């Protein structure tokens, strides 16, 4: 195995060991998302029963929850893996080794991909079995939807890691609420037009809003929103580049100031 791949595999192996050894890490992977699906599944069923709407709440509302939870899981995949090294004060051991920062993040992202796909499969399974959600009703558009959400979740994760590295372990409390802060602007549960005009402009800068608008269009049987998805893809790419650049800047700041070598809750933040 090439040396670079072996180091990435080492990061993955460490995370796999952690996951395997602790049910406290495995249960939350599935529990909150499963509860979310059940909750929104019943809400969707109820709305279907009382609404005269021509569209199905299961595919719009519950489908949106599945996609949103997938994005949150991608973000958490990166952040939790990063926080494992924060909590165990492992930076000095890691970064005094031949491991590069790109290899380190490759390991975290691969962990996020694998854990997020497993959780997505669980969510789709529960939503389909219990509430009759047909994920295939989105057709091939499902692939770009998931890809954009995944990449934006990774971008948020890397940006979150930069914040924690710069301002210390206590800054993790700034990271966990990010999905909740973004969700109104991502238009997960309502169309963009439901927002005040000025806020619509802000929402147009948030890539997931294009995914959820597109998802509703497809569910309503309208034309596939290719152009708006392209805009969403461009914004997601910008977000990824910005997050990567922010982390690299913070990392070099940490190298200059010695933050990496003495990174603890007591010394930072």
């Amino acid at each position, binding site marked *: 195995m090439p*040396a670079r791949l*072996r*180091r990435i*595999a*080492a990061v993955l*192996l*460490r995370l796999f*060991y*952690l996951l395997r*050894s*602790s049910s406290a890490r495995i249960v939350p992977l599935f529990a909150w998302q499963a509860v979310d699906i059940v909750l929104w599944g019943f809400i969707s069923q109820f709305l279907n029963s009382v609404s005269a709407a021509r569209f199905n709440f299961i595919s719009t509302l519950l489908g949106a929850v599945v996609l949103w939870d997938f994005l949150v899981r991608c973000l958490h995949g990166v952040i939790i893996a990063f926080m*494992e*090294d924060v*909590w*165990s*004060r*492992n*930076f*000095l*051991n*890691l*970064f*005094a*080794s*031949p*491991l*590069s920062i790109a290899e380190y993040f490759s390991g975290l992202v691969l962990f996020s991909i694998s854990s997020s796909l497993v959780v997505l499969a669980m969510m789709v399974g529960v939503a389909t079995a219990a509430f009759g959600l047909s994920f295939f009703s989105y057709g091939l558009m499902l692939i770009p939807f998931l890809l954009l959400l995944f990449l934006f979740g990774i971008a948020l994760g890397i940006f979150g890691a930069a914040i924690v590295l710069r301002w210390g372990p206590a800054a993790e409390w700034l990271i966990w609420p990010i999905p909740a802060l973004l969700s109104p602007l991502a238009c997960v549960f309502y169309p963009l037009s439901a927002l005040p005009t000025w806020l619509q402009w802000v929402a147009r800068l948030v890539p997931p809003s294009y995914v959820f608008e597109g998802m509703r269009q497809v569910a309503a049987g309208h034309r596939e929103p290719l152009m708006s998805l392209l805009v969403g893809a461009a914004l997601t790419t910008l977000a990824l580049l910005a997050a990567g650049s922010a982390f690299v800047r913070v990392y*070099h700041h940490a*190298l*200059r*100031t*010695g933050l*990496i*070598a003495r990174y603890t809750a007591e010394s930072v933040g």
Partner: protein
Amino acid sequence: MNLQPGAAISGPPRSGATTGFEPAVDGLGASALRQEGDAGKRNMGTASTNFHLTDQAGVSAAPVLTVTGLSKHYGESLAVDDVSFDIAGHEILGLLGPNGAGKTTTLNMILGVLEPSAGGIVIDGLNLAFRRRRALERANFAAAYAPLPGNLTVWQNLRVFAMLYGVSNAVERVEALLREFDLLAFRHTKCGVLSSGEQTRVSLAKALLNRPRLLLLDEPTASLDPATAREIRSRIRRFASDNEVAVLWTSHNMVEVSEVCDRVLFLARGKILLEGDPKTLPAEYGKATLEDLFVAVAREPLTLED
């Protein structure tokens, strides 16, 4: 307190700080200098920089670690000030000095986790600034303040770091180190529940995983009982001499330093003040023991500065 140069601590005439890179000194290696006890050939401020060491067979050997003009400042504060030294294979160099002298800062720069403000570091012929990954493959370290993650078992930690350092036959290597450091019984124990002495042994096992050419040890025996510490010291000595390894060793235990180090550097206020053989250096400065010399350096470093 008398802070006049040479007033409190008598010593041999000093050659003065050198420029950093100097040619080989009279064709003599550091070990030859040590055997001669020729204190006049020692450099103060810049220690034995860029010697081309000559072994008994007369074959020139490049140093494993070369540090040149290394400085680190944090704003106005200067933590390390133009430090230069090198270490040959199979040599153990003690880096001594009071708290805050700049020892750990120097170590961190050599480990690539702290960017120097000036100066260069070459590990086994590889410039750390430009070939970081390749250079760090040839180095490793153990420090009391950097235990391996407590949430993995001993075996898991060593397996992961063996992969990070590209160790071939990793499983066999880990098994051998578990045996060597008497850790077989703790193979499946999480590092976090080990005693501090056991954790130190795990850190040392990790430090030897990749059979490094350069080994950095920051107070490696600080939490070990005297019997284990003695055993560990002899193992590291054997490892260094058998494998042509350069070792940079920091410790506040002067008995240990005398026993294990071939050469010591005294660092104070970020500068190298003294260099020499730990067995003969105290007498050269009118002190009975290395500890007395340490105390003198710590209390009155200006008496030794140029």
